[in-house]
């Protein structure tokens, strides 16, 4: 673990990251390290700041204080153009899909290919078809985003995120709202990607089954910081009350959100 060891530079490192919106602290001194090629799953209650965390990793939000490093480079100490260069290494899928509604599904997925590669029209077409195949939506290239269901939009957004075969994948609740079969299919895609390309991945999910299937490590975000960061088996076995409450989905065991608890 010497400082000179190149492989020791994590793909993503957040140090003391704080962020407040209108006086309300969402992240407060958050530290996080994701080594190259590993998969981290972040769990946390709704509204705790998981999406905000992910947006800090790719530089969509700028921390009020603290550092965000990608491959050892502080992304806010470089120029906007260099930051865009760094972002090319990422693929991000958004919670609601965030598809460009002025474009068809095919144009959405081919957007990064057309913009950042010299692939031929035929190569682009094949890659788009391949990505749609992966998310089990073959042949819908010509459809507009408004013709799709929420779950379909999310899967197209997932396809767009992986189109460039990025080094670092950020998935914001990729399986939320999907039926069990499509959830399983998406999990398999993530697992397959991990075997073939060995990307670094940060996945946000509320689905513990998904978490344990794709994670090397499972982290719990609470009150602005990563409170627990364990391998899946240890996380599942942990007797930390916050983890137990989360794993069992028991709101009464979770002091902060226990409005129904009447006994003193």
């Amino acid at each position, binding site marked *: 673990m010497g400082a000179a060891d190149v492989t020791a530079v994590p793909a993503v490192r957040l140090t003391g990251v704080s962020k407040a919106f209108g006086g309300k602290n969402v992240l407060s001194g958050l530290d996080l390290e994701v080594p190259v090629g590993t998969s981290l799953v972040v769990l946390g209650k709704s509204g705790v700041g998981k999406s905000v965390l992910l947006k800090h990793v790719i530089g969509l939000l700028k921390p009020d204080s603290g550092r965000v490093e990608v491959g050892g480079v502080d992304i806010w100490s470089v120029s906007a153009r260099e930051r865009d260069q760094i972002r090319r290494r990422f693929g991000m899928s958004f919670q609601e899909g965030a598809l460009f509604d002025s474009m068809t599904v095919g144009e959405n997925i081919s957007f990064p290919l057309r*913009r950042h590669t010299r692939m031929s029209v035929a190569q682009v077409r094949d890659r788009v078809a391949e990505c749609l195949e992966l998310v089990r939506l073959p042949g819908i290239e010509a459809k507009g985003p408004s013709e799709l269901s929420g779950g379909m939009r999310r899967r197209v957004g997932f396809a767009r995120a992986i189109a460039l075969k990025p080094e670092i994948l950020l998935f914001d609740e990729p399986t939320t709202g999907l039926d069990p079969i499509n959830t399983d299919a998406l999990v398999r895609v993530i697992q397959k990607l991990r075997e073939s390309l060995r990307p670094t991945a940060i996945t946000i999910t509320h689905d513990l089954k998904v978490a344990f299937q794709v994670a090397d490590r499972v982290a719990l975000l609470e009150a602005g910081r990563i409170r627990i960061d364990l391998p899946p088996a240890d996380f599942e076995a942990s007797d930390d009350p916050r983890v137990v409450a989360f794993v069992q989905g028991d709101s009464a065991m979770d002091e902060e959100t226990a409005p129904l608890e009447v006994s003193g």
Partner: protein
Amino acid sequence: MLEGFGRFCELLYRTILGAVRPPYDLKALRDQVVRVGVDSVPVVFLTTLFTGAVMALQTFNGFARFHAEAYVGSVVAISMLRELSPVLSGLMVTGRAGSAMAAELGTMRVTEQIDALVSLATDPVQYLFVPRVLAGIIVLPMLVVLGNAMGIGGGYLVAVKILGANPVIYMDNTFQYLRMNDLWSGLIKAAFFGGLLSLIGCQRGFDTEGGAEGVGRSTTTAVVIVSLAILVSDFFLTKVLF
């Protein structure tokens, strides 16, 4: 107010940078030129036609008091070219295209499409602002040429068909006192207004906060701010362009 002006300058700078740096997206520019043009031709057509007509009626009425009816054609032409056609076209295009830009970018903001652009290593100002602002600068002068023709045509119709002026003399009179500078100053104003309305329209949309309601707010404030900016800058431009 001052903060808003600072933001305007920052985005103006980023738009200029984005315009000179590759990639150059000619397809997007063409799409926007068509969109702004097609959106705006009918309203500019009607507005300037009727303004020219009203100008002829009013000046005829006034000028008759000191027997200067012969100058109606000149006054209509000079007012349209220098002032009315650029300002009215600017205001109309603001209502049509400027508000549409604010609504479009505002929707993209609240549905995270702008975040998605950034995550795909694309500068949203270059990608979204540059084609729109250039389209405004290109299309408005073209609309103003149309507006000039319509305004003069509207004046002619009223003078000749309603007020009984001699068609040949009226047309002579229209062009007798016109200078090239009248046309140019109007076109320069138009290009300026076109860039201004697109940039502010884009900026209001880009900086939208607060969901669908925020998009509505951005759209209305865009129209109000641009309209004021056009009327105020018109005075100073007129002063500079004499």
